């Protein structure tokens, strides 16, 4: 298993991670629902995790793998805060559409 993974050129992992990152970025820029926004940001962070894990294997260095675990925990914390903010958004504005709140000038 490791032999197969190691035989894949590292540039393929970079391409995969960049593709996932761009899908997430596309979601952030096009979706209006705050919940889709959270999912898209999650994709972007997981794209970074792919890089960390893949290059930890490539360099034979555990730092990247351990940091990927940290990132997963932080992403969960960020979603928890985000859901809280989206909840008060819904209570005040009756919607989760991020383009609706425009009380202040942009």
């Amino acid at each position, binding site marked *: 298993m490791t032999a197969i993974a190691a035989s894949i050129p590292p540039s393929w992992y970079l391409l995969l991670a960049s593709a996932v990152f761009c899908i997430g970025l596309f979601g952030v820029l096009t979706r209006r629902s705050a919940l889709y926004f959270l999912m898209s940001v999650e994709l972007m962070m997981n794209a970074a995790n792919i890089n960390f894990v893949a*290059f930890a294997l490539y360099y034979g260095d555990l730092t990247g793998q351990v*940091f990927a675990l940290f990132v997963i925990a932080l992403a969960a914390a960020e979603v928890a805060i985000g859901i809280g903010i989206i909840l008060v958004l819904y209570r005040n504005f009756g919607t989760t559409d991020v383009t609706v709140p425009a009380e202040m000038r942009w």
Partner: protein
Amino acid sequence: MVETLPQVAALLPALVLAATGLALLLVDTISPDARSNTSMAIVSALGALGSLSVTVWFVASGTGSVDTGGAVTLFADAIKVDTLALFFIAIFASVTALVVVAAHDYFHDHDNPAAFYSLTLFAATGMSLLAVANSLAVVFVALEMVSLPSYVLVAYLKQDRGSVEAGLKYFLVGALSSAVFLFGISLVYAATGSLILADIASTSVEGLAGVLGVGVVMMIGGVAFKTASVPFHFWAPEAYEGAPAPVSAFLSSASKAAGFVVAFRVFTEAFPLRMAVSANVDWMLAFAVLAAVTMTLGNFAAAVQEEVKRMLAYSSIGHAGYALIGVAALTLDGPANGTVMGAAMAHLLVYGFMNTGAFLFVAMAERWGVGRTFADYAGLWRRAPVASVAMAVFMFSLAGLPPFAGFFSKYFLFQAAIDNGFLWLAALGAVNSVVSLYYYSRVVKALFLDDPEMSSALDAVDVRPTALYAAVVFAAVATMLLLPGFGPVIETAEAAASALF
């Protein structure tokens, strides 16, 4: 380091902040009836001041300075306590102390102020950790530790539509930019195979210089968000205007300085100038462009605002542009590299006091309910003479007029930039300072020269929020005292910055 203490005691300033925050949270959780706004505010202020005094003691005793054996590194080089870190922790602790004292009056009728105090202290802990981070892993974890409480603090008034909207926008831009920053870190790791700053610098990147370059650009994006610089500055006017004013003060002074400590340490240590030039990853040029655009945009946008708080928000974008000169005006073997970065640090310290004070004056106006525009502030000095004089001090100091501390920090910054061959940046900064004088003096004119439209307009000023007054006056005194005290400050800052090169 004082020899009798173990090495880990170098983290004491951050630990004091963390312990205070946890203690407040604990008391609030196990006996919610016992809490009182006053005791919570006193404990948080003591925690912040305790952290500040430990930091000042460390600086005075030379912990981590070049003269006394160099930086203290902990946890396999992931943490590095040096004078640069201690200098920034002093800024964070001072701003935190001012903000929690002011919050005592601002949230006087709020039903759960304990959450505010503990979140503020957790964010300050994150900032201190950011200042000592010597590994990109620690940088990211600490950055999130600053960001997550900050999102909640901005949306703290959850019945208030402006506060919620501001919190949402801050969160959206913040989550996006931290994902971009993280992806940048992952690309740097892909190119170098390490997250420790010094190891990244010592790795040769032949085939992967392109990957490294993209990673560095994405990390600049993350820094731009935290410092509220172009191109991630959109959140700042919204978040500062909608947030409770003490939170705006905290974010625009402390959180901004936290972004700069990342810029100062990570870019000079992980991607040193020699590597940046040889691998063609010219981040100094990127920062120079950002500095120029940021200060111009911030100052010109501030000039057309009608609301004081929003004007201060744009002015804080402008000041981010000035401080960015500290990482922009660097050249390989430049004679004034340490000087220009040290001057930027000194500017951030002075800015920490004068900008916090200005936002706390706005907090006082919000507490009275006198309104938000320049016109609403008309004639306020008749009812609040001391606070108005303090606000005038902040405004002139922010504009960089002599004899206030803001003049000296800007003067040293522009002078050092010229010494390093960046005359155009210094000239642009000077032009922007002239523009800024226009909108800062509008506040002073409103306070002292204008008459209120209705004579009853000032009747709102009926209470004397003592703690808020104390915080504003103390910030003004600090802004004045930094004038005679500027010598030691700039020397410490320059020595700390020079150790990076």
